[in-house]
């Protein structure tokens, strides 16, 4: 099975480039530098037009950002734009099954260029070296450059490739759309696209790296092609397969390609020019990225099934493949996703997986530099791994201060000068965050969980304003503390006071107040002033209603079942309102309020926010 090209069906010139009002679309034609630079890393397919599609959603903001449409283009899906979207993205691969069965497709429907599916390591494949795994139902549409930055564009649901688990487990090629296999059939569904859309836009708005949905093209029976964009869609697993196969030349070219791309995109700045230092620089970047990402995921309760294969995550720590991604309302650290053949990792195990990914990169860099592959175990205590450990806790410290509501000035000072005090507070915080229900493990629709019982966002939101009113010397009682912190999962028994819990409540408050006083003293601001600032910021950061995985699923169902059906433009409007409401950045420019403005949310968005509220403590 090599690269597949049709012989009988030749592409027609009619499908080649034509003039259009959206010239950038013409650049998305299957060409991608990876095909030339690392040809072993891809499988090329010819593609043909897939009929019957309709544009269910188009991300106007993202399209403007990447230069696909002019900046002054309205959020309007004109016929010309719609046709351009369909022409560019409504495609399906001509796969091995089609070839073996001598399917002949109309010449005018076959595109001139091949499109690539990329190879990468995936733990669910029988081969643990990544020789047969990769994009099972996706192809890369190409690369677009705008204002000096390049973006990768790929589509999910464009046909069954030979890299899917089903193909390799059952040792047969599948016809695209074969109903006997789900994931292996090569199609994806509209609800997957909408889930990714709502989730990724919220997370992107809150500063997290993530793939973003550019367009959703829907077909009959709920099927869809979901087009996604990110400035670099490579994952660690795109390198780990070559490492596992001891294929140094390909591994090196893949790493070089990645580094070069990050430099060109100005994400790697001041990178050294000599190659050995450049690889060390690359490793440092990996350490920094994965330390920050794993700390952020843990502190924002983002579960993304990180594992040793380096799949489900992008090289820059961005989130990809929202199928198993969740954001919890509480720290549900015992939740595991049931993937039929295996349980997923838990949120608290993500750090260890990130650490292992860093360890693997230490092995990769050493392998490239010295051309000799040593055992992964030799890198357990590598300086990169040690550095990861330190940086992980640095980010945890930063995150707790930010969550408390300290602004960047206070945060920087406390991080620099009072690490021990921050860690003492973080320990108290973790004690409550980790508390689980006496009910024990419970089955949930897609896995298992042992419910967390305390909502830390609630205490961080309410505590500063209570202190502000009572004074910093008047602590809140143990009962009041538990009254605020209890979640909907907490039973009466869960809320019982114990000596240890009482001590922790006092310690939590003592250390909280200490941090406020330290900031106040340093900047010669009254503690009340610091508290007021913290209180206002914290009310945004720790908003009562923050999205969870379950709420996104329910919201998507609501959008899917809406009658009359929402148009692409309407989804765009609803999405914008919803995402704006979920923007928890206290420094964002806020609307001028006279505390009486009629709220603008449409009824549908209000309904969505109501769902967010109902599921706020969930998974």
């Amino acid at each position, binding site marked *: 099975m090599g690269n597949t090209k049709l012989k009988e069906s030749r592409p027609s010139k009619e499908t080649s480039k034509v003039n259009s009002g959206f010239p950038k679309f013409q650049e998305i034609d299957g060409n991608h530098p990876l095909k030339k630079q690392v040809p072993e890393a891809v499988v090329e397919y010819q593609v043909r037009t897939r009929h019957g599609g309709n544009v269910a959603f188009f991300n106007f903001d993202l399209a403007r950002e990447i230069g696909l449409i002019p900046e002054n283009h309205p959020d309007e899906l004109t016929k010309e734009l719609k046709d351009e979207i369909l022409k560019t993205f409504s495609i399906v691969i001509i796969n091995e099954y089609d070839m073996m069965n001598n399917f002949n497709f109309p010449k005018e429907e076959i595109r001139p260029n091949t499109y690539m599916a990329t190879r990468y390591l995936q733990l669910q494949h029988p081969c643990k070296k990544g020789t047969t795994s990769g994009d099972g139902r996706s192809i890369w549409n190409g690369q677009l450059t705008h204002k000096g930055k390049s973006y990768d564009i790929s589509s999910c649901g464009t046909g069954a490739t030979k890299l899917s688990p089903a193909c390799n487990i059952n040792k047969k090629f599948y016809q695209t759309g074969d109903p006997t296999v789900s994931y292996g059939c090569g199609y994806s569904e509209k609800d997957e696209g909408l889930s990714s859309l709502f989730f990724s836009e919220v997370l992107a708005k809150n500063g997290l790296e993530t793939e973003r949905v550019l367009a959703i093209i829907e077909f009959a029976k709920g099927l869809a092609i979901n087009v996604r964009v990110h400035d670099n869609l490579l994952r660690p697993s795109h390198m780990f397969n070559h490492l596992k196969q001891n294929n140094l030349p390909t591994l090196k070219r893949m790493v070089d390609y990645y580094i070069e791309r990050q430099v060109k995109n100005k994400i790697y700045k001041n990178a050294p020019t000599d190659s050995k230092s450049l690889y060390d620089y690359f490793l440092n970047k990996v350490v920094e990225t994965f330390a920050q990402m794993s700390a952020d995921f843990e502190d924002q309760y983002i579960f993304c099934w990180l594992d040793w294969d380096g799949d489900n995550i992008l090289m820059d720590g961005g989130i990809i493949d929202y199928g198993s991604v969740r954001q919890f309302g509480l720290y549900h650290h015992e939740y595991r996703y049931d993937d039929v053949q295996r349980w997923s990792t838990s949120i608290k195990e993500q750090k260890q997986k990130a650490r292992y990914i860093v360890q693997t990169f230490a092995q990769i860099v050493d392998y490239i530099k010295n051309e000799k592959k040593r055992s992964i175990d030799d890198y357990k205590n590598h300086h990169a791994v040690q550095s990861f450990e330190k940086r992980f806790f640095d980010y945890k410290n930063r995150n707790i201060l930010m969550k408390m509501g300290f602004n960047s000035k206070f945060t920087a000072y406390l991080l620099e000068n009072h690490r021990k005090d921050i860690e003492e507070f973080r320990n108290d915080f973790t004690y409550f965050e980790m508390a689980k229900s006496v009910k024990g493990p419970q089955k949930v629709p897609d896995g298992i969980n042992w419910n967390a019982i305390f909502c830390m966002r609630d205490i961080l939101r*309410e505590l500063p*304003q*209570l202190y*502000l*009113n*009572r004074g910093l010397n008047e602590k*809140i009682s143990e009962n*009041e503390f538990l*009254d*605020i912190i209890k979640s909907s999962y907490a039973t009466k028994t869960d809320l019982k006071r114990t000596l240890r819990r009482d001590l922790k409540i006092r310690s939590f408050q003592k250390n909280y107040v200490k941090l406020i006083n330290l900031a106040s003293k340093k900047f010669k601001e*009254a503690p*009340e*002033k610091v508290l*007021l600032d913290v*209180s*206002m910021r914290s*009310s*945004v950061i720790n*908003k*009562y*209603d923050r999205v969870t995985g379950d709420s996104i699923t329910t919201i998507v169902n609501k959008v899917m079942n809406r009658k009359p059906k929402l148009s692409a433009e309407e989804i765009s409007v609803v999405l914008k309102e919803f995402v704006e*409401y979920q923007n928890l950045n206290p420094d964002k420019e*806020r*609307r*001028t*309020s*006279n*505390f*009486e*403005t*009629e*709220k603008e*949310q449409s*009824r549908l968005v*209000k309904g969505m*926010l109501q769902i967010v*509220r109902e599921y706020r403590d969930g998974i």
Partner: protein
Amino acid sequence: MKIVLYSGGNEDDNRFLNQRALELTGVKSPKLTLIPSSSYDAEDDFRFFVQEFSKLGVQKFMHFCVDIPYTKTVLKEAMKSDLIFLGGGNTFYFLKHLKKAGMFSHFSKFLKRGGVLCGLSAGAIILTPHVHTASFPHFDRDENPWDMKNLSAMRVVNFEFFPHYKNSKRYDAELLHHSKKTTIPLYACADGGGIIVDNDQISFCGKSHQFFQGKKLTISNYLG
């Protein structure tokens, strides 16, 4: 009872009423609580509230939403405030949730112990006997998608209040029509204006108008 009804307006428009409301507390360093009409974007409202009252030297603020679950601890603390400010927004939504949360009895106790209760626009209408004035004029009224039938409100003042009044024929036509059907006076105030009730004393801020039994009367004696 100490009550201040605000019509509405931006930034500096309400400086005078804010000052008077603070004076009514009789406290040097008063504690203020904002209860927004809705928790949607309540943080923005809170920020603005703090910004405005900080200019007048206030340092202690809370905000507290009634349309989401709240704890006894926070409710109790809010009721210890010297001044409670009911924000503006959709009157029907606010009324629905204030009633559901049983807030009227808390407010009564708050007023009895000398607290200052303020309301702006929707928040002010809710202090009157009922919220009919939120239903007109037809070109500028609050939506009532919940189809609330019981429009009775707090009744801590014995008049109706019409915020955001504009001295024009089309407003007057609807206000005069409404006044024929009621037995209590209706006071209409433009943005920046309002009414201050200090026990038996009632004073107006800004040019205000009374609509009663089909007649319009301009109140010429006003503060601010």
